[in-house]
């Protein structure tokens, strides 16, 4: 039985889709079977980030409505043969997502994959609540700024009340993934500090992904950053986060805090 992870945030534009793709690729690199499911019906992006937009035939809604088989809708990644994508529909709207349909699809995916990563849409409406409903683990993607932190706090509240696990009286495992972290701005005090974010949200830290042009570049060429530029700082952060997801105990380095760490990174890039 695979593990179902929801990647969620409340706020839009914080890096849910980028993180879903990057973590999916990082986990799949180890030979584990991974599927990344796009729940953003009507505003799908994941296919673009993963460079599969020209190969989409069927989507999640087709499967839910019985118009296509699950195997027909799954797209295998061209670079990693254990990485799959289940795209969202761009033409239908969120009302086509039904609780029963999602449950059936997730149950089927759990049978044949080691990791099922659900890329949640922004907001706290139907799409987002259905994406988190069947999850075993949640990754809360947050930027170090107040509005993102408050929205994440709201989402954590929903994870503790509106999910299947919560309704059965269990506690969902939740991890914080701090993205778009800018060491220079943090040093100037323009951004919330890591400790402040952790104090407010009080959930364990999965990783800190630095703000980087590498992420933007990776998105534009349609490749998860962990595949296109695996030695870049954000890719290393995602690889470490994936190892922590597997249960490895790995200390989290705050970018910029240790000059040696960053100096080494730049040194390597220049070489």
């Amino acid at each position, binding site marked *: 039985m695979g593990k179902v992870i929801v990647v969620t945030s409340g706020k839009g534009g914080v890096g849910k889709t980028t993180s879903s793709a990057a973590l999916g690729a990082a986990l799949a690199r180890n030979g584990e079977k991974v599927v990344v499911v796009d729940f953003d019906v009507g505003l799908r992006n994941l296919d673009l980030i993963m460079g599969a937009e020209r190969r989409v035939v069927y989507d999640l809604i087709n499967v839910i409505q019985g118009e296509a088989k699950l195997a027909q809708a799954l797209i295998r990644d061209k670079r990693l043969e254990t990485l799959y994508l289940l795209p969202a529909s761009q033409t239908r709207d969120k009302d086509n997502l039904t609780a029963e349909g999602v449950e059936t699809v997730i149950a089927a995916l759990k049978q044949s994959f080691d990791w099922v990563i659900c890329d949640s849409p922004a907001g706290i409406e139907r799409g987002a609540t259905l994406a988190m409903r069947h999850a075993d683990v949640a990754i809360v993607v947050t930027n170090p700024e107040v509005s993102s932190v408050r929205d994440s706090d*709201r989402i954590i*509240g929903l994870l*503790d009340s*509106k999910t299947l696990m919560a*309704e059965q009286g269990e506690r969902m495992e939740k991890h914080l993934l701090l993205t778009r972290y800018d060491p220079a701005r943090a040093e100037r005090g323009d951004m919330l500090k890591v400790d402040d974010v952790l104090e407010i949200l009080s959930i364990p830290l999965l990783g800190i992904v630095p703000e980087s042009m590498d992420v933007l570049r990776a998105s534009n060429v349609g490749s998860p950053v962990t595949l296109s530029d695996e030695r870049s700082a954000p890719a290393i952060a995602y690889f470490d986060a994936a190892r922590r997801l597997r249960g490895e105990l790995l200390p989290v380095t705050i970018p910029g805090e240790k000059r040696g760490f960053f100096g080494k990174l730049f040194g390597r890039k220049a070489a």
Partner: protein
Amino acid sequence: MTSLLTQPRPIRLKGRSFLALALTPEHPFEDWLAQLDHLASRSTNFFRRRPLVLDVTGLEIDRSQLRELLDKLGERNVRIMGIEGARPSLLGPDMPPPMADGRPASDIEAPAEDERVEAKTPEKAAPPSPPPPKTSPSMLVTEPVRSGQALFFPEGDVTVVGSVASGAEIIAGGSVHIYGTLRGRVMAGTMGNGSARIFCSKLEAELVAIDGYYKTAEDLERDLRGKAVQFWLEGDTFKVGSLA
């Protein structure tokens, strides 16, 4: 307009408890509704203008069934003001709000066929008997209270071991104790208890209120931010003091 802005006249938020009838539907709903029709046919005014709560505790029902039941009750002019014992997933935004912590009062007798008795029923139906005292007048929360969550505990004190997030709300009949950072809103003594207090180990609150008197973050003295403080009322004045 200017005087309205410069002389703050606080909006007073108070809790009230009312007596409502609780309807407990049973499976199969057709038979239950038929019985209800029978009851209503004996007394046409029985359900009119009466506050009614639908009690679905332990009832096997899904959202569409609940919606259908509400519609069928609506057709019979039975208006439901709240739903008790429902899982959060059952309730939609268009449905009556969830209600909790209802205290049982004496049963209300269904109208008899005798018209004279029927005329008396309204008096019987609303006995002004005070609710029996609750044995646990305090609530303990050991988790952080998240943004968007609202805790409502009119019976007494609330203690939170953890923080109260920005956008979260605690409404208590008694005092509120927060062993963490208070970033959200706290209303203490809402049932008219002016001796209630608010305590927190780190103050970053959006709003604090006792018995309807309130202060927003802007009104709070700046040097108290980040400190351990308590709030209380002295007459009509809101007092703040350091706990250190």
